[in-house]
């Protein structure tokens, strides 16, 4: 490990390592190129899924998320992650337990059974915010790391919900029309495009994808229509669950509603990987349900 790099415990979550491993590979390599070392967080589990677990019993959600935080506390390292759902669980539970003694005591009573204790000694970050933060990386350093600019590519940004909302418990500012991920996309040489109702949910969260797929897809479909209207070459996001919903969702939308969009879906780390010169094979882009080839033709 190079001495001057920032080091973080890398919380993987479920969908990135187990469905889109290209995101994991890209996150490690692209981060290294901009001065961030992501170290394995051994023994981490599902965050756990905030929609599913939070709906069943918030106390279990607190305890399970706290266990993941404690693993990082034992390493003495802040957590970095690549998924909005994980961010909701890990960031928010860490935040709540740090500020609510009653909650923390309750959680620690359970953690005691497995010889763990939540101390509140680390912070939790989404990689995207570390990229944007000039004290850690900053847009300029991202731009400087680019070897193959994505010139001419029109890209829609999907922020997702749980990174920035509820804003009261976050530090991102405006959630009605944020532009900071667009800045990160522009740093890759691509053209970020605005579209109607940008901040709308992908439709998958809260257990709705599993509970009522047609309902979830109808929300996704509205987003696809709005993106297609402005003519995008790809959509980028910072959440593998949103990625799954847009990527596989387009196949399901075709089956259920008979409409086809063919808009490639790429996690920001996959885009950054391409722009830094990683090959499509090194990103396992063949695992995507929607063919990424038209987008690659445009940029390669």
């Amino acid at each position, binding site marked *: 490990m190079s001495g001057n790099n920032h080091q973080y415990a*890398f919380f*993987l979550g*479920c*969908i990135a*390592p*187990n*469905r889109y*491993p*290209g995101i*994991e*590979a890209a996150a490690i390599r692209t981060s290294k190129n901009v001065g961030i070392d992501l170290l394995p*967080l*051994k*023994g*981490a*589990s*599902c965050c*756990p*899924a905030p*929609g*599913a*677990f*939070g*709906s*069943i*019993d*918030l*106390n*279990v959600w607190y*305890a*399970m998320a706290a*266990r993941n935080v404690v693993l990082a506390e034992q390493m003495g390292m802040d957590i970095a992650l690549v998924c909005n759902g994980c961010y909701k669980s890990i960031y928010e539970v860490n935040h709540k337990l740090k500020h609510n003694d009653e909650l923390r005591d309750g959680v620690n009573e*359970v*953690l005691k*059974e*497995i010889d*763990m204790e939540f101390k509140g000694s680390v912070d939790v970050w989404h990689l995207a915010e570390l990229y944007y933060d000039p004290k850690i990386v900053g847009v300029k350093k991202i731009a400087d790391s680019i070897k193959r600019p994505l010139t001419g590519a029109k890209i829609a940004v999907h922020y997702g*919900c*749980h990174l920035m*909302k*509820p804003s*009261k418990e976050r530090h991102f500012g405006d959630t009605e029309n944020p532009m900071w991920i667009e800045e990160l996309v522009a740093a890759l040489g691509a053209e970020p495009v605005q579209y109607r109702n940008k*901040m*709308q*949910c992908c*439709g998958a*969260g*809260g*257990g*709705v994808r*599993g*509970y*009522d797929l047609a*309902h*979830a897809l*109808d*929300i996704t479909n*509205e987003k696809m229509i709005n993106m297609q209207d402005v003519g995008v070459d790809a959509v980028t996001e910072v959440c593998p669950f949103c990625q799954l919903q847009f990527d596989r969702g387009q196949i399901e939308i075709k089956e259920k509603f008979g409409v086809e969009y063919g808009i490639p879906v790429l996690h920001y780390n996959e885009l950054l990987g391409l722009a830094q010169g990683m090959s499509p094979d*090194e990103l396992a882009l063949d*695992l995507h349900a929607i063919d990424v080839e038209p987008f690659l033709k445009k940029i390669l």
Partner: protein
Amino acid sequence: MAVKKDYKDQQLAEKLRDRKYYIPDSNPEFIKDVEKIGQTAAHMCYQCGTCTGSCPSAPRSSYRIRLFMRKAVLGLEEECLTDPDLWLCTTCYSCTDRCPRNLAPTDAIMAMRNLAFKRDIIPRNFLQTVQLIYKSGHGVPNNDANRAARKKLGLEEEPETTLKYPEYLPGIRKILDHYRLKENADRILAEGE
């Protein structure tokens, strides 16, 4: 002399005077439970409808978050917890972000879902996630196609999680067992078959 607003029909007047709990089977404790679990002062809701207007589920279903907020205040526990619409919230937090009363309607919904689960009312997919995490630590576990892809990427076949270090699983199971979550998930799923 102060004028008191009243109705000629004394029964109706009595009913409307008690503005909160006028349905015989309403439970005044319900709103307190929702507020405690959801950690939000749901009774402060003044029914402006910003929440429903911000909701991605509202235009495509009969789910109305504002209605749930009102029903919670009125103590209509049964109606809230048995309504299938309760599970159509995507937890996007748009309503929470825009609420002019600084409430968290999303968390009120989460609280109602927690209370529904206590009565075994819960969609099956939520419980299946519990079973998966109990087994592997992951809600979305690894598979062979993915292992092959990981290998090609130069990653280890199993990620650095409970999948590679199953010795961490007993700890996770202890937490879930503390809340008897797996046991209840198994039971409810079996009963539904």
